[in-house]
């Protein structure tokens, strides 16, 4: 029982790892798609796009 139980834990750990990695990828990607960089110029607080 002991070895198969260990395998089971490893599988669960592997699956958890995949899930966590997926979440991290989503978190990492999301800001890149919606993030607006805020900058300061001449005392104004602006979006970076304002200066284009």
């Amino acid at each position, binding site marked *: 029982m002991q070895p198969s139980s260990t395998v089971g834990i490893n599988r669960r750990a592997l699956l958890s790892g995949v899930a966590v990695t997926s979440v991290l990828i989503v978190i990492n990607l999301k800001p890149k798609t919606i993030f607006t960089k805020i900058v300061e*110029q001449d005392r*104004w*607080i*602006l979006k970076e796009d*304002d200066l284009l």
Partner: protein
Amino acid sequence: MIFRSIEEYDNSGFSPKVAIIGTGPAGMTVARRLAKAKIPCVLLDAGDEDYSDRSQKVYDGKVIGDPYFDLDIARLRYLGGTSNHWAGWCRTLDAHDFEQREWIPNSGWPIKRDAIEPFLDSAREILGLRNVDDDVKMSNDINWIDLIRSDPVRFGEKYKQELVDSELIAVVLNTYVTDLVAKNNQISAANIISNWSTKGQVIAPKYVVATGGIENSRLLLWSNERSQDPVVPEPKALGRYWMEHPEYTVGDAIIYNPEAYKRANDGWAFFAPTPTAMKETGIMNFHAVIIPQSLSQAKQLLADFACTAPTAAEWLFKKAEKDISCLGNRIDWAWEQSPKFENHIALSTKDKDFAGIPRPELHWRKGELERKTLVEGIRMFGRALAEKNIGRLRMDDWVHNGYDYPIEDQEIAGYHHMGGTRMSTDPRTGVVDENCQVHGMQNLYVAGSSIFTTSGYANPTMTIVALAERLGEHLITKAI
């Protein structure tokens, strides 16, 4: 009943259960609450029914530290007290203002906001207020908040007839309480001067000091010097941890999407940080105000914006359909001051009033945490406006470059005198306990904003009235 001299009062044979010193929002609220429970009280005012220069000059004092108002105009000495020049702004302290916040030294009340909530309905009734609307999220960091501009209640005018008709409240005008006399941890008498010359005493089983955020400290400090037994047995915090709300114009803003938040009829709108944003940034509470400006100011602002961001300015001009009158706004700021031992009321060693009582000295300075709250708060608010496509904010030069606080054309502060007899479970850091009772005294209580442990950003009157209602209820149910 209203008496105009101590002789009239003495001759009436009135026998009070409580002597309340001060007829402003705090003192009058306690008196009215007691009267509703059929408990007789005497309500003392040093001034008369109306303003007089002579009475007002008793409030002279000295300010040491940052620029501040002359003390003789910062509060009023006649029936109704400082409610007589109150502007009417109302909101209670937020729940998080009562919490201990590790980044703000000496923060944390011994009570939570829950403790005053049962008294908010009656406070609203006393002040003639509508309900305060819930905060509305504007961004992750900033909420729109409801700061009510009410028709200000002048307590002397509004409640005068009730006082005249009352058989349970004896108002005694022209009666200056110079000091309290203590014996065996109890107040035995209040020494008074009536009509500028007649000395006497007012005696009651219990006493409430409600003379305002400077005079409460002054009266207790002087009483401690005069009385054989101490009036405040553990005086380390007496007069200390004094606070104000700094108030400045800090910038301007082009607002092109004002529909994103609720506005008053005049276009004003108020905003405050979320508790999480304050914690993450390590700043105190504040409120920002968007105030619409004139067309000429809008033109200048847009011209300045075009110099920095020409493409965006062109887009803005088109979006406004060439009517730019609504774009220009001023940004005003009011914020919390940290309770610091160094900021305090002291008794002058040189100057005395007509009765020989030392005049007050206010030692008051803003510190690094106030500056950080200002600068980081503005950046937080400016980011929120930009991220949510509401507008663009420009900091004033002095804020951006870290110059001294300006004096010209500025409010400076809110005329909100807080602390001095603050609430704390520890007598080393406070004068009154959670029931507004002076530590170590059996029959002495304090009412008013001098008991505030921290200041929040909210104008204090509504919290003062709610706490006074709570003190009245405590006296009725537990102490009398």
